[in-house]
């Protein structure tokens, strides 16, 4: 059977990992490629690079990072951040990315999802759904890295993205992101149950039980976390062992 995926996420700025970590055995902890190798060796199921580079000119550093990572790591790599067009997607895929996460451009122009899915296949188009609670069981989509509200209902947008051809949704609770208080399980489950495609739960992981909850209570197909792995609080192997004990099928080999 299919296993629940654990996906470490690295924030990359100007070609360097930020908000990172300090693994003692890394020569250069700020080098995304070194960190990718570390996660590759430690049994991560996929890896996600989120480019938070502000200036457009410096974005080209990302292509180099992706290319160098793809040479070293033979695992799926999702890249997101600032992707606006088919040309951006092609460049990242050619550099070695397997999946591309799009957020702002998908919200402002949903037709782009259909265009990209048709051109490159649904399997490589991940739509990032950044949502904030605006009422009981109501969430709104935010764009520009969570800074701009749109008035768009998150569940409706998730359904639309899936029907336009997104192969997967990365669902992030803007309320929980960085809080270490756990996923917004109600948001996660509402979207997971509303769409046929797999969803990745994101935002708020502070401990291993949160990962379990994301799957069992949130119905996610994959869980994404940053700080618990980066700061060495837990290893990917510990996370998998913990999930396995909770009855979740994971890949341990």
């Amino acid at each position, binding site marked *: 059977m*299919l*296993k*629940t995926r654990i996906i470490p996420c690295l924030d990359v700025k100007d070609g360097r990992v930020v908000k990172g970590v300090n693994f003692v055995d890394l020569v250069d902890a700020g080098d995304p490629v070194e960190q990718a190798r570390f996660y590759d060796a430690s049994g991560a*199921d996929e890896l996600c690079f989120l480019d938070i580079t502000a200036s457009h000119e410096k974005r080209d550093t990302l292509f180099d990072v992706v290319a160098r990572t*793809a040479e070293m790591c*033979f695992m799926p790599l999702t890249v997101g951040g600032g992707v606006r067009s088919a040309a951006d997607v092609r460049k990242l895929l050619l550099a070695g990315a*397997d999946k591309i996460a799009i957020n702002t451009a998908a919200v402002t122009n949903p037709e782009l999802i259909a265009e990209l899915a048709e051109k490159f296949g649904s399997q490589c188009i991940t739509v990032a759904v950044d949502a904030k609670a605006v009422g009981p069981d109501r969430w709104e989509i935010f764009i520009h890295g969570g800074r701009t509200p749109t008035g768009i209902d998150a569940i409706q947008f998730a359904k639309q993205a899936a029907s336009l051809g997104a192969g997967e949704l990365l669902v992030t609770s803007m309320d929980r992101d960085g809080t270490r208080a756990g996923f917004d399980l109600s948001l996660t489950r509402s979207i997971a149950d509303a769409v*046929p495609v797999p969803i990745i739960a994101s935002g708020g992981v502070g401990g291993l039980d949160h990962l379990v909850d994301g799957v069992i209570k949130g119905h996610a197909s994959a869980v994404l976390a940053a700080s618990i792995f980066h700061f060495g609080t837990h290893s990917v192997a510990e996370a998998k062992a913990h999930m396995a004990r909770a009855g979740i099928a994971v890949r341990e080999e």
Partner: protein
Amino acid sequence: MAQTVCVIDYGSGNLRSVAKSLERVAAEADLGGRIVVSGQTKDVLAADHVVLPGVGAFGDCYAGLSAIDGMVEAITEVAINKARPFLGICVGMQLMAEIGLEHGRHTGFGWFEGQVEPIKPRDPALKVPHMGWNALELTGQGQGHPLFAGIKAGDHAYFVHSYHMALASDRDLLAQVHHGAALTAAIGRDTLVGVQFHPEKSQKTGLKLLHNFLEWQP
């Protein structure tokens, strides 16, 4: 190993990942040889081993190959008439079927009896695309096949697809996985092999399979 391995470039897919993983495998095992990424029929015809990657839709991939003058003929020549080891990956495997039903009805190479159909799990909790790591179940043929030497039942491979190849018979089935129902994971006959999963993304298991392919001298 093969003196020359050609990875066919027809504008589809993650060629770089496939080529890089083959290069890594060849270098680590000191196999020598040369990995060529090419969209030219002469390179395909001259290759000792041929790899056909593919991501995207069945019809688009076939159209991409057909758009290169003489490519489908060259592939048939090298894989069937010259019987050089041929590996299809993901849609590259699916193209070896007779028919693909993704976005309309399309013909494939017709080397394997069967068609490429949508994955439709009865349980709505099972998601499509079938995306992630799944445990391989090797058939009797698979266990004895050189491609799977050193790979055992239960080893995981990375999949991402919404359509799968429904074979007319199990004769050529090397491996399957379960996602609601059984899905074809690997096929093989004579010098032809195909895998639905991505060996170039399947860490150790995938690299082992690519190593086996490079060393395969049927």
